């Protein structure tokens, strides 16, 4: 499924206000590869460096030391900048800060127009992108009429219209209600599944990160763990020290283990819990990284 690296970070450090008394080292020597077709989650408390890392991935920020390469080209190379931003699209936290045009359709067309594409090609891309996120029928609406989840899907469509290879979601669901959150995550998961889109999901909701194939945990600017989500999220004490909180099912499992219950590790969702009890989930669904024998 996953192939050669699309994005490579080598000893990447970011210092804000370097040389000044208020200098802050937001990232310290990050080594990370994002492989083509991979679904990677990055988790960490506020202030751990997650958003700084996101901004390195498409060259919005260039590392103070070290190097970031996207599809082989350094983000520090000014000639590669626009190509890198096209390849790696970002969705940010606040849906209201990302939409600029008077209608949904014009908003999605904004990026392809800037690429100088022919009119027909722009129209084709806008339609495909809006159909992909399920908002083609809302194309004539002003963005402010949409719900938060719909706005984020429009932002996503605007990126898809650029035909990127990687999507970076920087806490893109943090300001949405649960239904809006589910809409955005489903759309992204589908793009990954059906089109092998590379996805980097930056979040502090561990229930969201569980969908990823691999998770990287950041603490004070360093990567402190990397692995499959269920291997990492089953350690409530450790998560708490990192400023994260285990999901309710993880905490419940931990309490029962202390009572002597022989529950397997890696319980994060309700489906995991039911599977651990030997009961199939509501849809007979077995979590994917559990079905695979290591």
């Amino acid at each position: 499924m996953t192939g050669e690296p699309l994005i490579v970070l080598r000893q990447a450090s970011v210092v804000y206000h370097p040389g000044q008394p208020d200098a802050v080292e937001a990232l310290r020597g990050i080594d990370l590869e994002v492989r083509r077709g991979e679904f990677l989650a990055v988790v960490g408390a506020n202030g751990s460096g997650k958003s700084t890392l996101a901004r390195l991935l498409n060259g919005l920020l260039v590392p103070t030391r070290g190097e970031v390469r996207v599809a082989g080209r350094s983000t520090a190379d000014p000639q590669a900048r626009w190509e890198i931003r096209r390849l790696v699209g970002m969705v940010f936290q606040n849906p209201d800060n990302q939409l600029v045009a008077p209608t949904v359709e014009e908003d999605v067309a904004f990026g392809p127009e800037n690429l100088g594409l022919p009119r027909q090609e722009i129209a084709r891309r806008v339609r495909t992108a809006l159909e992909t996120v399920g908002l083609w029928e809302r194309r004539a609406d002003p963005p402010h009429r949409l719900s938060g989840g719909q706005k984020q899907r429009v932002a996503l469509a605007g990126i898809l219209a650029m035909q990127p290879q990687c999507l970076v979601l920087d806490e893109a669901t943090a300001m949405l209600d649960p239904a809006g959150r589910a809409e955005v995550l489903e759309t992204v998961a589908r793009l990954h599944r059906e089109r092998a889109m590379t996805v980097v999901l930056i979040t502090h909701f561990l229930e969201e990160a569980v969908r990823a194939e691999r998770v990287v945990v950041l603490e004070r600017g360093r990567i402190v763990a990397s692995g499959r989500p269920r291997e990492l999220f089953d350690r409530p004490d450790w998560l708490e020290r990192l400023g994260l909180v285990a999901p309710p099912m993880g905490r419940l499992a931990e309490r029962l283990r202390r009572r002597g219950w022989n529950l397997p590790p890696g319980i994060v969702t309700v489906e995991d819990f039911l599977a651990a009890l030997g009961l199939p989930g509501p849809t007979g669904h077995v979590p994917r990284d559990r079905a695979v024998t290591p």
Partner: protein
Amino acid sequence: MIRVEGLVHVYRAPGFPPREALRGVDLVIGDGERVAIMGPTGSGKSTLVQHFNGLLRPTRGRVEVDGVELWAPGRDRDERLAEARRRVGLVFQFPEQQLFAETVWEDIAFAPRNFGLGEAEVADRVERAMALAGLPPELAHRSPFSLSGGQMRRVAIAGVLAMQPRTLVLDEPTAGLDPQGRAALVDLLGRLHREEGMTVVLVSHDVDEVAAVAQRVILMRDGQVVADGPAGAILADTGLLASCRLRPPATARLLLELARRGLPVDPRRIGIDEAEAELVAVADRLGPVAAHGQRPPEAAPAGGEGGP
């Protein structure tokens, strides 16, 4: 006590059709209650809570705080409204965006000063509010803008607490905070209720957070109350929640699945302590993974939630 009767609120703006945000709401919130108001975006939650202290004027219907009708005609109406705003403190969404002063202390002191209190009383209230909100005293002279998101939000809440309201109403108090910021805020709300006897009303989308904080849930949709009752009963009602674009908390979903398979568990027991007790009670029917017999928990945390 807050009493709302036949409350209708219509927003009018030039160039737009009028929008009926509340369409006949009746409810009473008693002293010392912990109530969550839930519902999809646009259901009228935020409009409703702005009526609790007279920030909005009803299009129709009435609002009472401690037996005093806020909007009844009369010369003393401004005084009634001022008193309601003192008794019912309202914390808006993303309240840290409204911080403005150069220091944390000055920000929290703003409302009590405006209220005409003497400097000694103001100082006393600021210190108390900071302690209540869990802000260490050494932050008093820092700029609020140098703090973390969670701390900034607690500064904004302390600014409301400094008015010493008996009821605290919070609109989406944990939105956008990281998990530890959220846990600290949930803890703060519990403390205000337990130790200060405050009435706590929160607007929230987060069912797990509501399961931890509220005794009662008021569910809204399209400007009306569609359900009002004990938190456990409402948060275990999958169909009702789905009609409001919500789903039960993880604890309720697990218990519902077990109940569906014929196990005698009560899905309304949504607190993590309660859910644990429900599972332990049916351990002998859960197969080999469950511990049987009366083995006591090892190193169980003293009193409730959290780590070891």
